[in-house]
């Protein structure tokens, strides 16, 4: 039986429902103390330096730093103006997984994070757009602001059915990234929420390319505790939700190797994103949502 189809039935919200209420709570918790747009990018108030990466606006290159330290640094500015937020939520089949120890499925966790971020942005008057890394059935939500946009986002997330196989259909990711690149203009903040598990090796570079053209990018990896800790023992037969991989293994003997592979995967993402000035965060579905959203907000300030 196709596991992806099996899990597509509905999102397992677990302890995270209802979405609207949970997102509001998380947003309020994370938003406490923030009095201005935390979004950073092109603006008028100096906000610090970062390493130059290909694609950055050469006008923001700090010549003094170049002459003084022989380093290519780019000046960043804070703005008081509205900042667009582009949410990219992975709704592929693997995101529908919920382990026995998890509070909810990965897609539910990602939905709450996305809704909370949307609420924070909308509360600041910033426009929000949202797209999905999923099959064609999940339609993106165009950039807009206001309470109605939050409602649209929540409704879309509630109606989401995880599905699609990113491993066998790499175009799924490309479609979503193209859409984001088109709607997120200079100064926009892009937050990608995914488990990052079934994408090809070139996916990190593709996603990191969103950080060019003055956009700020944060990638949030969402894993189930089972995926993060590999708690199996004895002989297990593991079936992937995407790609159809089936592996029979001795869990005790291969735990270390798996965790090392996972660590290598994350390091690869972290390195690719860091080259572009983007941020990488990783969390499990049992982590604190408020803490995670606050970390995201602080990361992209």
């Amino acid at each position, binding site marked *: 039986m196709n*596991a992806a189809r099996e899990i597509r039935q509905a999102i397992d919200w677990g302890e995270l429902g209802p979405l609207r209420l949970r997102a509001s709570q998380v947003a309020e918790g994370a938003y406490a103390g923030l009095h201005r747009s935390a979004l950073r990018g092109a603006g008028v108030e100096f906000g610090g330096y970062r390493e130059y990466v290909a694609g950055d606006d050469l006008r923001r290159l700090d010549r003094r730093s170049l002459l003084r330290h022989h380093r290519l640094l780019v000046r960043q500015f804070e703005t008081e103006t509205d900042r667009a937020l582009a949410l990219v939520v992975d709704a592929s089949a*693997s995101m529908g*997984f919920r382990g026995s120890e998890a509070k909810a499925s990965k897609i539910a966790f990602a939905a709450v994070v996305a809704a909370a971020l949307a609420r924070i942005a909308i509360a600041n008057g910033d426009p929000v757009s949202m797209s999905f890394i999923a099959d064609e059935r999940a339609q993106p939500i165009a950039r807009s602001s206001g309470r109605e946009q939050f409602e649209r986002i929540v409704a879309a997330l509630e109606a989401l059915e995880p599905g699609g196989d990113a491993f066998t259909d790499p175009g799924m990711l490309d479609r979503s990234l193209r859409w984001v690149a088109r709607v997120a203009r200079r100064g926009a903040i892009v937050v990608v929420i995914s*488990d990052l*598990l*079934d994408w090809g090796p070139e996916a990190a570079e593709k996603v990191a390319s969103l950080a060019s053209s003055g956009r700020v990018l944060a990638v949030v990896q969402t894993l*189930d505790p*089972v*995926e993060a800790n*590999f708690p*199996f023992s*004895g*002989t*297990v*037969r*593991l*079936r*992937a*939700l*995407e*790609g159809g*991989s*089936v*592996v*029979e*293994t*001795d869990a005790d*003997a*291969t735990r270390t*190797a*798996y965790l090392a*592979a*996972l660590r290598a*995967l994350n390091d690869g993402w972290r390195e690719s994103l860091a080259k572009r000035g983007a941020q990488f965060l990783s969390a499990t579905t049992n982590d604190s949502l408020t803490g995670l959203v606050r970390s995201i907000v602080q990361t992209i300030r």
Partner: protein
Amino acid sequence: MAVLVLAPYLAHRLRRKSAEERIFAPARLVPPAPPQARRRSRLEDRALLLTRAAAVVVLAVLGATPLVRCSQLSLHRAAGASVAVAIVVDDSMSMRAASGSLTRFERARRGARELVASAREGDSIAVVLAGTPARVALASTTDLGAAGQVATALTPSDRGTDLEGAVALAHELLASAPQTDRRIVLLSDLADGHADGAPLNAGSDLPLWVALPELAAPAVDCALVRADQHAARVRVETVCGPAQSAAGREVIVEGANGTPLGRAAAPGGDKGETSVLLQTDAVMAERVRLSGSDAIREDDAVPVLPEAARETLAVVVDPASELVATGGAPIVEQALGALKLDIDVAPMPAVPDSAEELAGRLAMVLDDPPGFTPEQRHVLAGFIEGGGVVLLALGPHAAAAPLGATLEPMLGEAVSWGVTTLRGAEATTVIGGLAESAESLSDLSATRRTLLSPGDSAAFQALANWTDGAPLVARRVMGRGEIWIVTLPFSLEASDLTLRPAFLALLREWLKVALDHAAPLRGQVGAFWSFPGARSLRVEGPCGPLEVTRESGASRVSAPCLGLYRATVDGRAEARVAQVDPREVDLRPRAVAASNAGVDALGQRRELVDVSSYVALALLLLLTLEMALRLSSRRASLAA
């Protein structure tokens, strides 16, 4: 029964734990490590499954034991009396042909074991082998254990077949047996090359039972008899069974390591010869084989030997004097020609001074030589020590040897040529092959004779003595060769010796010894190779080292397998080849005289055999094994 056999399998399938399948998105990050614990469990399960399935099968067999069909030979005994049996096992080459899944010999050996197993206390068993020459493997004995060991240890050979000899031996062995019920059991394919001969055991009072008639099945066989290389040409001789042919097959000449050096079509007909031309004469072919297959694989290859020159006999006489007497060839040459031997005679005016001139000479006749120079003595000593045989006639010239010339190494001292009044030899002193013609030596019309010194006379073994006891004909072994002396010259002027029948008998006997000493490079497998005068002998062949026996003072061996043999005679290496007996390719069976007693009265082939005790034992072992496996599995699980 199938359900019973499948039951443990199904139970294992139900019980067997399959690995628990889990949904795990990052499965591709997990290395497929060998699941050791599960593999161990699976192996144990399999062993248990096999053991239980085998136990069920054995249980079913045990239940059906009376219905188990198993052909087995056994002896039939009238009124339960003990029997004396001579088991004749044919170990000739024709028994290497296949009979079902076994060879004929293996089937015969199994039959012999079955017969021994069916014997009881008080029965006597003898085992005779029918390969040429027929041999007694075990004289009649009531020790059934020894008989069983002999039957088990029988090995096949490439010998010819001597069924008549083997049956005669069996008769002799049974003649002294105390049992009144005596019989011969023949385990043979009856292919002795005399398919049209008189029925075997005809007119005998002992019954003969051909226990395995299925061995005498018709089959096609061709063999390579010999292969000789001369320069770049290899001459190959083939032989096939009657009305059979090797046409369509190829003769392939191979060098070292089986490298093909040349090939030619095998000749047609049941006997043939073909030549294979090699590309160069610089290489020595090692063996020739026949392509394709037939009933006997072992005779489809033969070693290659260098083509030997024809053997010659050197005759040293004084041609001038002989020509005057006979008007033609010397009388000794004419006598040798009268023997019609396949040997060339090479007249020589004198004993050569170099050993090369005697190379290839089989033997040498020296008629009244006037002594030998030192060089000649050296050559003669080497010739005799190396296996040559010399016939030395002593006359006036030998007695009047010039200064510096002696009769060494044959005689240590000078001889004398003197007047005699004796008429001839004393008939009672004539022995050996001359004995038949002893009377013809009684009057030789000799007026003079040669007398040896007492020391030389003592060194020789007399074959015929003058009436006064002096030797007329005598022989002596020297090294690997022999010296024969005659104390009369072969000249007609000296005596009538050469006109007497005993002279031809003397030459025949002497040549027989010479041929024995001149080792042939080839001999039929099973025939004896004699090494007269050899002090140390070791022969190794395809069947391993051969046992050296001694007969009439000469070492000899019998080669049981086809192929090349390496003999080491007194430190010198020789190569000899045992070649196939052409009669062995004739696989037609010989007729056997019908026994008065009838086959059923001699033995039987039991079709139903009670093997329940063995089956029960096997079942017990399987159950023990099953318990051991379960205990082992339980301990392993507890340890885990």
